[in-house]
């Protein structure tokens, strides 16, 4: 095997011989050679050459090259702002087959949001390439400190489907974020989904935190969607300061198991 593929650059004078390296890598990618050692050695010995190879003006193009480059995202971020880096990688991933290009873009977005869960600059990328805009970003932001702000960012951008999908997994923050946009009907449905998934979802505190005592009127519309007695009891316990909600839930509570 070519020594270069094993990370031995003794035959090259980098960065002067970068064009030679690019040709070697192109050939390697075409023949499906494992280039991980080459990239790893470049990252440790010639980071500028790695950057040139992955995202420079004459960088390798195509899905495989981009996937390879993504493995060294942390190194590449040392030489390029993340916002520009991931945009560049998406551009480099453009293939003749738009389906492959889109898949590559989504892979790039996933890496971007994994490394930068709170970043706002990924929103236009999500919108452009994801089937359900915001899905990857929101999923990566769960259990991070920025989850709430990411929910709000995506709500503001109108990415309701992704928020609704996560509400269905019990994430009440998503319902509250939808509520903050004034989309009350969808927010109610999302809250109901959150409750029916996780009966202890703190729907009342989150709705109150967003709209104050107006939550009392809004939550009346939630009650018909409640399926379980546990969820109803949780609402009852939380809704002390909201008399209308508490009154209605008291009426329906005996009918729910």
């Amino acid at each position, binding site marked *: 095997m070519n020594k270069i593929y094993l990370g031995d650059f003794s035959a090259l004078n980098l960065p002067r011989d970068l064009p030679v390296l690019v040709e070697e890598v192109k050939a390697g990618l075409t023949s499906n050679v494992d280039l991980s050692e080459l990239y790893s050695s470049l990252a440790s010995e010639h980071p500028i050459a790695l950057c040139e190879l992955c995202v420079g003006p004459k960088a390798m193009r195509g899905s495989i090259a981009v996937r390879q480059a993504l493995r060294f995202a942390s190194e590449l971020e040392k030489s390029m702002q993340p916002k520009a880096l991931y945009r560049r990688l998406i551009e480099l991933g453009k293939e003749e087959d738009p389906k492959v290009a889109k898949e590559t873009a989504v892979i790039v977005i996933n890496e971007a949001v994994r490394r930068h869960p709170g970043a706002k600059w990924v929103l236009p990328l999500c919108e452009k390439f994801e089937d359900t805009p915001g899905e990857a970003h929101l999923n990566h932001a769960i259990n991070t400190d920025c989850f*709430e702000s990411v929910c709000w960012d995506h709500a503001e951008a109108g990415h309701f489907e992704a928020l609704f999908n996560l509400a269905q997994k019990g994430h009440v923050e998503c319902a509250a974020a939808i509520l*903050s946009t004034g989309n009350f009907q969808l927010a109610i449905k999302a809250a109901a989904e959150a409750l029916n998934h996780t009966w202890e979802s703190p729907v009342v*505190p989150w709705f*109150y*935190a*967003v*709209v*104050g005592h107006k939550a009392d009127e809004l939550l009346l519309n939630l009650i018909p969607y409640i399926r379980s007695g546990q969820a109803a009891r949780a609402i009852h316990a939380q809704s*002390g300061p909201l008399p209308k909600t508490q009154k209605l839930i008291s009426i329906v509570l005996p009918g729910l198991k």
Partner: protein
Amino acid sequence: MNNHRKSALRTSSGRLPYSGEFYLLVELGPLNVEIVGRIGSGLRPEESWESCLAIRKALNLAKGDSPLSATRSVWDCLLAIPRHDFGPKLGEDLSIMVVARSGEKGVLSAVGLNSIWSITGADDCTLLAGSDQPDVNKLGVPRMAPKALEFEKPGSVFFGSISSTEVPSGLEIARLLPVKKGVIVDE
């Protein structure tokens, strides 16, 4: 019962403007006590909500046959709450305004506020307490009940702000003043 609130706090800025806010109207025959406050800044809504519920439960037990005695009772109830019920900061982050009214007069007292305004009209706001009133400004459950201010007009409307001395905005005033004929107040 008149549901229109006559006391309010400036909502906090940010995504969750009402997080940790509580409001309570205790009706004691001919007099009533409005209690409005906030606790748990920076906490998740469900955490501060627990503190709010505990505070509401305790203050609902307030009694009294005059605005002054009702106000004292509110503070007694507040001071009797176990500190851990106030949440992780043990009540050190509490702001609260208590306004007791009878048919003839009223009593106001507060802690944790940077300003308290009396509002008598759309363009008529009077600063009752500013940032130079340590007793009022100091955040947190006090050691003893704070001084109370008596006022003559029981219909007076009060507006408190935790962090600023800015004059209440038109919208903030509109939310507090009674609805005039033909004017819809955004409540």
